[in-house]
């Protein structure tokens, strides 16, 4: 379980820090999370999404909702 925590940048929206958790053994590397994130929060690396820009995350939840394998959790 990869846990990445970072304080949210104060862009006027949410204030709690975003966390994105990856249940790596369940991830199949489809890249849906990475390629469809409007904020380019991830890049795919070794068939897994790697967080590269968490601060851009708007917590829109779409990556979680679209992850077909229950591998991504945005909290």
């Amino acid at each position, binding site marked *: 379980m990869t846990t990445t925590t970072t304080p949210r940048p104060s862009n006027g929206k949410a204030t709690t820090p975003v966390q994105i958790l990856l249940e790596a*053994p*369940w991830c*199949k*590397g*489809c*890249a*849906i999370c990475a*390629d*469809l994130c409007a904020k380019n929060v991830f890049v795919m690396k070794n068939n897994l999404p790697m967080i590269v820009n968490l601060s851009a995350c708007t917590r829109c939840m*779409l990556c979680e*909702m*679209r*992850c*077909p*394998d*229950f591998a991504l959790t945005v909290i």
Partner: protein
Amino acid sequence: MNYMNYLRKERMPLIWCTGCGNGIVLKSLLRAVERLGWDKNEIVMVSGIGCSSRTSGYVDFNTVHTTHGRALAFATGIKMARPELKVIVCSGDGDSTAIGGNHFIHTARRNIDLTLLVFNNNIYGMTGGQYSPTTPMGGWGSTAPYGNAESAFDICGLAAAAGASYVARGTVYHVMQLDKLIEGALLKKGFSIVEAITPCPTYFGRHNNQKTPVAMMNWQEENTVTAARAAKLPPEQLKGKIITGVLTDRDLPEYVEEYEKLVERLRAQDNLAR
């Protein structure tokens, strides 16, 4: 939300291929169930045979994985026997409209209070990519190597013509909309169906010019129009487009209820006779 509250964790990871959209539909369903606060003991998921029909194995409800095409008929028995149960049927385009087409139209006609989720990937995924009744004309299937010569069903149109109360179409790309459509279906009295357009990258995408799961998702984005917008667009702009949203929502007699009314009428007569 914590999906794990509704899953059989020991059955994970999912059997489906990389980028298969089935999991996205499943998640959308679970969110709707969570919002409604339904008791897992009262939910029954019935499915047929197909990749999508494997859904029933993962959810922590009462689950019945039946025979190919027959899920609705099994579900009808369950619902009739215990009307207080919430019965959800998960099925593929093949399962529900090819071999299962008759149960599909008759369940709609009786308008029995079930919810059907059709995972429409326009192909028979499980058996290796044969064309289905929703494969577009000209499209590839392993049994349509030169392009499909058959016309496709409009699943939603068929359901409405057969008598369903609630008919909606969504895509896994438009996942927020899908959530609402499914919630609407679960809440509706009568037969409700949500056709969820979902990618099968392995067989459909690979051979139909949508090489990756992401390409398939993007295709959905580009080729759908909501019913609301469609109403305002000229027909030529709608050609080849998929119309999403609630397409039919009406109150029609529901079978179990009608049956119970009949029983009550008989009881009343009986009392009168005494």
